[in-house]
Structure formats: C-alpha cells, structure tokens
C-alpha cells in the first residue's frame, strides 16, 4: 500500500504523465458530451415527429372519413416507427448516423419502403463519430504507449535503474506498484467521464459494468504489449517506435484490410436487384388477368379466398393483394440481403477475436445496440409492424367495411422499444485471449533472453 502511495506521489510529480492523463480525461469528457448531445438530438427529433405525424394523420382522416373508403385510408395513411437510442448509445453512436431511426410505412409493398435512407451529410459521416468508443479504441492505446514505453528503459537511460532497484526491497513490487498506479490513472481518466455520461443517460448497471470490463481488458492488452516490448530491453525510442507501429497495424491497417476482404468475400448486390425485382413484380399486375394476382395472394392468405369476387371495376383489395404478392416475390432476395448484412457482421467479429481494437469496437456497439445487427433488428420490428398493419386493413378491404373516423383510432401503433444490447462474451474473451497470448509469448522470449 505504501509502495502504491509513493508511486502515486511520484507519478503526480511527473509533469508529462499528469499532462497525458489530463488530456485523456479531457478528450473522454468531450467525447462523452458529444455523444450525449447527439443522443439528445435524436430523441428530440423522435419527440418532434410525434405531433407532426398526428396532424398528418388527422388531415388524412378528415379527407378519408368523408367517403369512408378503406382503400384510401390504407393507401394514404402513413404509420410512424422509431428506434430510440439505447441507454448506452451515447458511448457508441455506431450506424445510427447513416441509417434512419425514424421511418414511416404504409400498408403497401414493404420492400419498396424498408430501405429508405436518411437525410445525412455524407462528408460528416465519413471520418466517423467522436464518441467514447473512438477515444477508447484509437486514442487510449496511444496514451498507454506514452506512459508505459519507457517505464524501465527510461530509468535505465537516466542512469537511475540500479540505484532505484537497490533502494527497494523487491524490484518486482516497485514495478508492480508503478504499473498499477499508471494503469489506474488511465482507467480513471476514461471511466470518470463515462460514469457521468452513464448517470445522465440512465445506463443500466450491468451495461456500465460490461463497459468497464471492456475498458479494462483493452487497456490490459496494450499494457501487456508494452511490457512485452520493453522486456526486449531496447532503448525507449525503439520501444516507442515498435509500439506505435503495432498501434497503426492493429487499429488502422488490419481493420481496413479486413473490411475490403469481408466485403469482397460477401458481395451484396441483392440490395439494388431487390428494388428492381419488387417494382417489376408489383406492376406486372396491371397487365395480367386480375385473377392471377388474386390466386397468388390467396395461396398465402386462404382466409380471404371466399370473399366477394372481383368485378370489372377497380377494387382496392386487388391493389393491396398484388403489392403483397410483389413483396413475396422479392422475399428470397430480401432474405439473402438481410443474411448478407448479418454475415458481414459475423465475419467482422471473427476478425475481432484476433484484433483487440476491432473486438473492443464491436463489443461496445453490441452493448449499445448500435451495430448492424441492431439495425437489422429494427428492420425486423418494422416488418412485424407492417404485418400488423396489413392484418388491420385487410378485413376492411376484403369485407367492404366502411372506414370511418373511429377506425383510424383503432389502427395498430408501433411500440418503440429501445434495443436491449447483450453481453459481448466472445469478443471480450477474444481480447483476454490475445492479451494472454501476447503475454505468454513475451514470457517465453524473456526467459530465452535471460538464460
């Protein structure tokens, strides 16, 4: 304990070390605030849309309830869905800035509505967000390198090493204390601003714990790497260069190459083809006998088979039926597309198992439910809601029931549920495993040098 206090005092006396920790603290604080601001902006947008959407529906209601045609109601009424940010989204904004978190759908073909983009500035999205995840994954390792690359070699170069080791009972206790104090300093610089952010955002305790575990594991990896490099007993300059090169490789080069490799191994062309297929399938209905579309529809919806047959005149039920058939025809492409997005994400996790930076990034986004999987989950919820909408409108359309003012109030409402996030067990395991591996290699090599 005394050793720790002594080292803490020593560390606080080092201007450069204090400056580094203050800088990391300040960067984390800025990142956490930027994340909170962004989350507040998204929540405000969702809240703002509520009344606007209500007045839009009210205007449609006024017009449709005059004629009470259920087809007009189903065609002209948009239903809002939203994907509110989770209680940890402030720490890892993830894909929330390139994909919509609010989307309105109608009971028409879903495949033409589900992939709508959001109004966003692509030049602002390009460099990536400045959030807690960024500070942790990219910047924190640089600070670890700064504080740890010359832990021993610095003393040796200053000519103090022997005297220092002789002045304490056990050199390992000295280095243990020095290491612990520095690690604790960096950890606090990251954790304190995060705690404040988590408190403001009301983050669930288990997620706070999980984030801290991720932070610890990632810091531990870099500290162990620094120790291993330092054991090679070279100059501080050589240590710093080797570590910075490792940082560049692990956080810039490997992920960039991984991205290229994954995207070319799993090409996603289905997206654009999907759009064209669905459109052509839907519009073909105007040129083929109506009974053909209706038969295809009845195959998946036999409950409406025995309703009144279509006459010569236009009937909305035919219109909605062929939209449904269009969705069903595009179903395979749609499933392939969804699968492809998830598969790309799965491969990035596999890369994460051997690249701690990637694992940390993915783990935080998993916890915050801001990864591609969360995006797909939102699409799945929209899909389910769209199914509800269809089931709501179809009885009116097929049984020719008038659609009055009161019926608008009966329409299903989308229940927004913030995604839960889940424990990134495998990813965390990957970081720990890589740390153990690097430590093990260092230990073996160290013994070889010593013997």
């Amino acid at each position: 304990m005394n050793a720790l206090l002594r080292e803490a005092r020593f560390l606080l006396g080092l201007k450069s070390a204090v400056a580094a920790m203050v800088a990391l603290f300040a960067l984390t604080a800025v990142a956490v605030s930027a994340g909170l601001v962004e989350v507040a902006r998204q929540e405000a947008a969702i809240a703002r849309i509520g009344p606007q959407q209500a007045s839009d529906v009210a205007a449609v209601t006024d017009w449709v309830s005059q004629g009470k045609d259920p087809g007009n109601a189903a065609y002209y009424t948009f239903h809002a869905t939203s994907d509110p940010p989770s209680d940890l989204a402030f720490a890892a904004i993830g894909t929330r800035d390139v994909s919509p978190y609010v989307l309105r759908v109608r009971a028409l073909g879903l495949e033409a509505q589900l992939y709508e983009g959001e109004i966003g500035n692509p030049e602002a999205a390009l460099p990536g967000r400045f959030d807690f995840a960024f500070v942790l994954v990219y910047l924190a390792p640089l600070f670890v390198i700064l504080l740890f690359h010359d832990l021993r070699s610095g003393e040796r170069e200053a000519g103090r090493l022997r005297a220092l080791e002789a002045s304490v009972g056990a050199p390992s206790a000295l280095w243990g204390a020095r290491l612990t104090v520095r690690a604790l300093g960096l950890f606090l610089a990251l954790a304190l601003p995060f705690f404040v952010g988590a408190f403001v955002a009301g983050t669930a305790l288990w997620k706070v714990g999980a984030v801290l575990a991720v932070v610890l594991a990632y810091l531990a990896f870099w500290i162990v790497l620094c120790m291993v490099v330092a054991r090679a007993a070279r100059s501080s300059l050589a240590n710093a260069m080797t570590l910075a090169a490792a940082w560049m490789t692990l956080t810039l080069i490997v992920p960039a190459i991984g991205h290229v490799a994954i995207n070319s191994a799993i090409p996603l062309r289905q997206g654009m083809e999907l759009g064209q297929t669905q459109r052509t399938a839907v519009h073909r209905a105007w040129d083929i006998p109506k009974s053909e579309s209706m038969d295809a529809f009845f195959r998946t919806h036999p409950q409406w088979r025995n309703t009144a047959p279509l006459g010569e005149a236009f009937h909305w039920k035919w219109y909605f039926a062929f939209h449904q058939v269009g969705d069903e025809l595009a179903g395979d492409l749609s499933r392939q597309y969804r699968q492809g997005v998830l598969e790309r994400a799965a491969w990035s996790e596999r890369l994460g198992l051997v690249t701690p930076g990637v694992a940390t990034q993915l783990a935080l986004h998993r916890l915050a439910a801001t990864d591609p999987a969360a995006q797909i989950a939102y699409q799945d919820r929209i899909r389910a809601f769209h199914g509800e909408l269809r089931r709501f409108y179809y009885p009116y359309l097929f049984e020719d029931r008038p659609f009055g003012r009161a019926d608008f109030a009966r329409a299903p409402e989308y229940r927004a549920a913030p995604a839960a996030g889940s424990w990134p067990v495998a990813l965390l395991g990957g970081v720990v495993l890589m740390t153990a591996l690097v430590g093990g290699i260092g230990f073996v090599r160290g013994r070889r040098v010593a013997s």
Partner: protein
Amino acid sequence: MSVILSVTRNELRHLVRSRVALTGLILVALLTFAAALTSNAYQADQAGLRERLQHAADQDFAAQPNRHPHRVVHFGHFAIRPASGLAAMDPGVEAYTGNMIFLEGHRQNSANFGDARQSSLLVRFGQLSPALVLQVIVPLLLVFIGAGMIAGERERGTLRQSLLAGISGGALLSGKALALGLAALAISTPAFGLLLWLGASGGARLSAVGLTTLGYVAYLAFWTLLIIAVSATANRSRSALIGLVGAWAFMVVLVPRVAPEAAAALAPLPTRVETDIAVQRDLRSMGDSHNPNDPYFAAFKQKTLKQYGVTRVEDLPVNYRGLLAIEGEKLTSSLFDRYADQAFGAMEAQGRVMDALAVVSPTVAIRRVSMTLAETDLFAYRRFLEQAEAYRYDLVQRLNRLQATAVTAADDAAKSKNAAAEARSRISADHWQAMPHFDPKRPSAADVVGRAVPALVALLLWLAAGAVFAARAGHRLNRSAA
C-alpha cells in the same frame, strides 16, 4: 549543393541499412500497392455493376406493354449513380451515399443501398484506399523514420562533429529532408502510378490527375519538413517522436473527427420523415386536387378553360385529368426542390465549418482537394441527386402530357369501371421506348478545379509554414554549433 546531396546519400544509405526502417518502408509501399489494386478492382466492379443495373432498368422501362400513361408514372424508373473517374484513388463519400434512386410520380425517394449501411462496423475504421494510405499512414511512417534523423545525431554527438566540419545547418537539414522526401515518394509510388493510369486510361481528367498529384506531393512535403524541423529542434529523439506522434494524432485523427460534431451542432439537419410530413402539409395548404371546391384548382380550371376558349371541361380538346396531373406534379416538385435545397444548404454550411478547420490541420485540406478532384464529395452527390430529380420531373411530365393528349377524357373517366374503356386508355408501348435515358452530366473540369482551389491554397500555405519552420530550425543549428 553537393554537400546536401552527400548528406542525402548518407542518410539513404543509413535508411537502407537499418532493418526496421527498411521493413517499414517496404511494408507501407506494399500496403499502398494493395490499396491501389483493391480499390481499383472494387471501383471497376462497381462501375460494371451499376452500368448493368442502369441498363436493366432502361430495358425494363422500355419493355412495358401498352399502358395507361399514369401507370407508367407509378411504374417509375431507376437512376443509378455512375462511378466517378478518380474514385479508385479516393472513394470519398461513396460508401456513405446511396447509389440507386427509385424515380416515380408525386414522390421523391431517397438514394438507397449505400455501402456503409450494409457493411460491418469495420467500415468505420476507414476504407483501404490510396487516399487513406497517403493521408493517414504514410505521414506516421515518416514520423517513425524521421523523428530521430537529427535529434539522434545530437544524442550520439555526431551532429556537433558535422557542424564543426563545416556543413551548414541549412545544408544538413535540406539533405535529410531530401532523403526523407525521397523515401516518402518511393512508398507512395503505387498511388501516383494509379493516378497516372487512371488519367491515361481515360477515366479521369488530366487536370484532376495533375492537381491531385500536386496536392499529395505538397502534403507529404509538409510532413517531411515538419518532421525534420522538429527533429532538429528537439533535444532527444524520444521527445521528437512523442511530439510528432502527438501532432499526427491531433491533425490526422482528431480534427477530422471533431469537425462533424461542431458542424452538426451549428447547422442541424431535419430527418426525412419530418421533410415528408412538411411536404404533405404544404401541399394541402397550396391546393387539394381531390377537393372539387378547392380554390387553387378552381382557379386553375378557370384559367385552362379560358386558355382553350371553352366554358366546360368536357369541351376541352385535351384530357383535363392529364392537365391536372401536370399541375399537381409541378406543385409537388417545387416543394421537393425547396426542401432539398434547404437540406443541402445546411449540409454545405456544415461543410464550410469543417473546411475552416484546415487552419489547424492540413489533413482537412488534402481531404477536400482529393475528394473534390475525384468527384466523390458532397457536391458530386448533390449533382447526382439533382440530375436524377430533373430527369424524374421531365419523365413524369412527358407521361402526364401523353395522358392529356393521347388518352381521351371519356376513356380516362370510365377506365376503372369499364374494361373496354380501360383497354382503350392504354397507349402504345412505342412511347416508352422513345423516352430519353438517364444520362447524368459530369461537372466541367473548370468547375471541379475551381472548387478545389481554396483547399489547395491552404495546403500550399501549410507547406510554406513548414518551410519557414525548417529554415529557422536550420539557422538555430548553426547558432548551436557556433
């Protein structure tokens, strides 16, 4: 001069002998090569795919059977963003923009299926492209190699020897800078080779190739001078290295990331849903074509009747529904334009805020130069969206005019109740085949160059600042020897 060259020669010999430095140089050169190769292959693949899809869309459109023109308005068309000439060098915002828009009547859809939305989170680490390597990775490698070039000699005591032997500080500094600069050029060769190849193969304009090369050479020269000057000023290699890595992290990693946060706070963007709702609301207040007593459309009717010199809609020589469709599309389209202009106005305001940070980071400037010249910036995206919208409007209005002139009012009115009238309301498929194809025009070379100039000037100012810093460091070396 010969002194400078002999310093350069010595330094290069030293670089080649040092295993670490040589390995770093070779690895980054290989990375540049791999980036050029994969980026070029990816862009070629994308260009082929998009051309194929656009062709398929054109064929689908032309292959429609006889139809009522309004059916065709809803059948719609697809506009696919063609790949740009230098995208292989710098894909810019390509991954963050949608590439395909569905064009239909009454609606303005978004461009969908952008890469960022369908990629894993790895895309956020940056895409491997020659631009990424030159902007981000090469400067860091130069820092590693160059931080100790002069500071290391000072530590070993050889610096004093050289200066006492009569080599001036300026010559020493120039010689070392030349060596580091040559190393920078050597590892960037694959990227410059790609630029030349893109220029020669006709995909890119020579002005863009030339200025992009100039921009990157200036950017790398700035880093070279900065590194040498810091190395000459620092007492120890380690403090030079730490200072330079800090400068790199600030200018290359931090500033470009903080910029969007600042910009988003200053010029917030509306969501798409809000814009959709606003368009609908404005439309209702302008005029409701469903309502027979609506003042706007009543006035339109009076104007039309007067124009044709008749008193009843039935006496018009054209189909009034078609005229209504033309007028309705005019209204909605003017709203789409207004809201799109607002959104892009806000984005460009954000862009100006982000560009202003070139004052503290040359990386911001080179990004702008590179993206603008590669035509992979926001402006190029906006141009695509606007041309797609113009094409959509033209196509829909051509079809609406066909409804007014080629479909009789009687058939149009009876088509949803009477099969024979419905059949007569279908017009010949020849009309679809005669429609123009989507053929987006590239901005003129002068336009592109003009927009790259401010950032290019900023970059040259950074280079000048680097030169001044280096010159002063050289003078100080002379003084320290005296």
